[in-house]
């Protein structure tokens, strides 16, 4: 490949979108638009002649290097473009609040985390990690969230009691019951504090 074709190939590879001939010509102050067109033609021919897995495509008024459709199915099956999806920090924190404080309403989650939780709650619901478990008696009867069976499956836990309960967690995220069930509860609480 000529030096210009090399440079164009690198630019086309690194750009997230198709690049026009004018844009490509800014890469090398000595290159005319005609030079760029010639070099692009070289690249295209080289890809075709040498039977590369990629080809030069003209689209959206510009040029882009794309993989050949023949390989699409194999690549899709292998799913390389995505890493195993992970939850964002915000989603994990929301999930943590729900896990340790369920059933819990959106207002309370937002109060604890200090940010709005609408989008995250929807994501967690779509992922099947949480579900609506009831409605609060409070004004507007807001929905209460709890963890779904998938949550336990993913963590490999038999039930919620298997969640680790470090003392600090127990105190900080102690569900506040409106009318505690008395003796037992109080005893457990005092224990956790001591």
């Amino acid at each position, binding site marked *: 490949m000529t030096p210009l074709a090399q440079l164009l190939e690198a630019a086309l590879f690194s750009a997230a979108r198709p690049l026009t001939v004018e844009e490509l010509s800014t890469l090398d102050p000595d290159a005319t638009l005609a030079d760029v067109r010639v070099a692009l033609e070289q690249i295209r021919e080289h890809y075709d002649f040498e039977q590369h897995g990629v080809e030069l495509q003209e689209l959206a008024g510009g040029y882009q290097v794309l993989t050949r459709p023949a390989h699409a199915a194999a690549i899709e099956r292998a799913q390389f473009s995505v890493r*195993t999806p992970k939850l964002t920090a915000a989603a994990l924190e929301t999930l943590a609040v729900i896990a340790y404080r369920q059933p819990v309403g959106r207002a309370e989650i937002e109060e604890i985390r200090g940010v709005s939780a609408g989008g995250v709650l929807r994501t967690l619901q779509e992922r099947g990690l949480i579900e609506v478990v009831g409605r609060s008696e409070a004004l507007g009867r807001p929905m209460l969230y709890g963890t779904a069976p998938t949550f336990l499956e993913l963590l490999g836990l038999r039930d919620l009691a298997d969640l680790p309960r470090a003392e600090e967690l127990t105190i900080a995220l102690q569900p506040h019951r409106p009318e505690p069930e008395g*003796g037992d509860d109080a005893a457990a609480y005092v224990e956790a504090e001591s």
Partner: protein
Amino acid sequence: MAAPEAPTTALGATPGFVVRLDAFNGPLDLLLHLLREEQLEIADIPIARIADQFLQAIHELGLNQAADYLDMASRLVRLKAQMLLPRNVDDEGWEDPRAELVRRLLEYQQIREIAVWMGRSAERRAERFARGYLPPPPALPPPPLALDLLELLQAVERVIAAIPSPVLHRVVARPLDVESATRRIEALLESQEQFGWLDALGPRPTIVDVLSTLLALLELAKRGVLRLAQPTAFAPMVIARDPARATA
């Protein structure tokens, strides 16, 4: 690097030195800087001089607010004092009090050299671009979500750390009600000469009730309304009318 005027301090050696808190990556970095300025061997720190310079540096740099620097400053001052203590010349058992600091400085120096190496590697890598355009992910069902317990626990810790006010105030369902506890105890005192702690608590007490009752009892005892006694260690508390008051 000719020094036109004799520098009085390590920092004076570099006029125009921009003083910022983030100029140093911590007290060890500052110490290394001081040693480097004076071209001194780490293994043989003149501790008295370096301690003075360190103190002056954190003063001049306005680093007083940084606990890490103050911590190191106090260590240096202690070392300085230890070095001044007289010792027997042929004391074989004498251990150089600087040894630990020297070890840490050498270790830190090594880490910093590695960091510089890593910074250069990252720069070299940054000169190569990966593909900018990434095809949209296939429309197949996504692979199973990765979630593990450690991540969840970390999230819990972040949440706890982010809770602004002291947590205990927030988990109490209702405020302490010392007044009604006081009234309940006073009512009991009317009818009984003495009674037990559990009687004072009332049926099915919550943690709030327990705390309220305890405070009420202590307050009443202080006012001389009642007396608190514990017959044996760990035995339930016994509450009795204060005899002095009873006779009054």
